């Protein structure tokens, strides 16, 4: 069997070399989509997985992050990356608006509030002329310099996204080992017990949400810097939130590599089903998503990683016999 350290090195090397080995534009496109899904789901994972506060409206943070780069470009002609910190600040502010009142109550309130606020913002942006209303915003068609980050080739995007994913996973790994990480797990296991042991429950949940919102907003910014276009549905649509949920839950919510595994399985299979069923198959994809989510909830709430950890020892035993 592989030791975890060797496995990790192989995974890292695979991700670094992937676009060089499979260099066609088709493969690079899958690679970039995969990384974006892994970043969004890992960001969701901090509050939804580790803290056990299930957001079903994370698209609101993604959308804010996606709109700001194009908004600063449209209004003042700034390079889109200048919008990233603004997106982060707004996402954290929004996290406070939702988290401060709902984290006093049980987890269901938080979930309801996230879906309602995400929908509220989607409708608001769809009617607001400053942000392009229903039409949305467009980025620079041709880059004015390297700082606009408009590349013909997908390769630079791939490595930028990979770097962000690495930062996010290192941050999450650091959290896991710190007091903050223990607080999160205690809250997830039993909020009442955690509180009685002196865990500052509300502050911890709030910090987790703020951190998660900030990274989700960065994911939105990366998406828009690559595509150069955003409208209310591609920024705030419910399916953005659904994808984060399903990627994280499929691999294993509340584990470091769960979202990565989820994205590794889901994104290539999604590309295959889309090419099989054609453009009209998107509806079928979401039926499938709904079905998978229900099955995970019913049979494997720990996701595939958890299933693997339970099955692997048995398989090993059988191999020895």
């Amino acid at each position: 069997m592989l030791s975890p350290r060797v496995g990790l090195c192989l995974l890292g090397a695979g991700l670094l070399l992937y676009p060089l080995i499979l260099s066609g534009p088709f493969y690079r496109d899958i690679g970039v989509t995969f990384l974006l899904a892994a970043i969004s789901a890992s960001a969701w994972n901090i509050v939804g997985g580790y803290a056990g506060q299930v957001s079903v409206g994370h698209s609101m943070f993604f959308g804010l992050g996606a709109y700001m780069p194009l908004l600063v470009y449209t209004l003042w002609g700034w390079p889109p990356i200048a919008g990233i910190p603004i997106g982060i600040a707004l996402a954290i502010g929004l996290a406070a608006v939702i988290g401060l009142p709902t984290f006093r109550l049980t987890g269901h309130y938080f979930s309801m509030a996230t879906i309602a606020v995400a929908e509220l913002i989607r409708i608001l942006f769809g009617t607001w002329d400053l942000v392009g209303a229903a039409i949305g915003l467009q980025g620079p068609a041709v880059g004015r310099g390297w700082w606009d980050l408009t590349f013909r080739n997908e390769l630079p995007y791939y490595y930028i996204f990979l770097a962000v994913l690495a930062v996010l996973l290192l941050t999450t790994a650091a959290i896991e080992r710190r007091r903050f990480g223990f607080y999160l797990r205690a809250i997830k296991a039993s909020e009442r017990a955690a509180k009685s042991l002196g865990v500052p429950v509300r502050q911890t949940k709030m910090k987790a949400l703020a951190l998660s919102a900030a990274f989700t907003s960065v994911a939105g910014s990366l998406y828009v810097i690559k595509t150069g276009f955003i409208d209310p549905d591609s920024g705030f649509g419910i399916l953005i939130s659904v994808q984060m949920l399903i990627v994280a839950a499929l691999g294993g919510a509340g584990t470091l590599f769960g979202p990565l595994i989820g994205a590794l399985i889901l994104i290539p299979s999604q590309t295959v089903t889309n090419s099989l069923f054609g453009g009209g198959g998107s509806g079928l994809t979401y039926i499938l998503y709904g079905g998978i989510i229900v099955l995970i909830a019913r049979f494997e709430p720990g996701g595939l990683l958890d299933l693997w950890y339970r099955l692997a020892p048995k398989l090993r035993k059988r191999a020895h016999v």
Partner: protein
Amino acid sequence: MVVVQVIVGGLLLGAIYALFSSGLTLIWGMMNFINFAHGEFVMLGMYVAFLVVVWLHGGPAVFGLAAALALFVLGVGVYASLIRHVIRGPMLSQILSTFGLALLLRYTAFWIFSANFVSLPQTSLAGTLKLGGIFLPIAQLVAGAVAIVLTLALHLLLTRTTIGSRLLAVAEDRAAAMLMGIRPDRMQALAWGLSAGAAGIAGALMATSYPWSPSVGETFGLIAFVVVALGGFGSVIGSLYAGLIIGLIQAVSAFYLGAIYKDIVVYGLFVALLWLRPQGLMGKA
């Protein structure tokens, strides 16, 4: 006069909001559980009504009962096959279960019925009543009245009958109820049946006056959240008042601000409620 017309129309629609929201609040009161697929239950009720009218040429009483019955069965089935297993599991499974169900139902409906808006063919409820200068479509009037009666009936069922006492006993203390010879699983299955049945008949009532598409479930689900948050989690009578209030607010804001703003106002109210009065009008936190 136009304002009176707007107010009456809002209240009549609000009565239907009250009916389907009472189903959502019943489940919350029984088991501290939020059903994210509740709006989809309403949407399915609309399509059941549609199919009964198109295939069997059933009248309003027939398609209303058919929608209630079909959704009652679906509700019990969902409880028995899904909810019963996730209710004591982690929060993640609880929320994912009905959220996934909502997606499954919504996109299956898209697949079968397409995204086009449909409306019921002329029913026997066609026609308009003119009352002191305001026009009242008979279908809306009947639907609103039936919705109020049914919501009150659900309230009375919970507060005045043995079945209601059993339901509330399970909600209060599952173990103690079991010691009294009540089967909690059966009671909770009944609650899911009643909840989905209320959503189904509310959908059928709404189908008599408004066109719809598979995406309405998302909107109705959110409206039910707002109604329940305003009326108080677990209070059926609270959801009756809150449903009427939300219907009124929607109609008035659509009239004065424009149709796109009616949902913005209602969802904004939800955020304000979370900050100011999270326990709702009639509820306990």
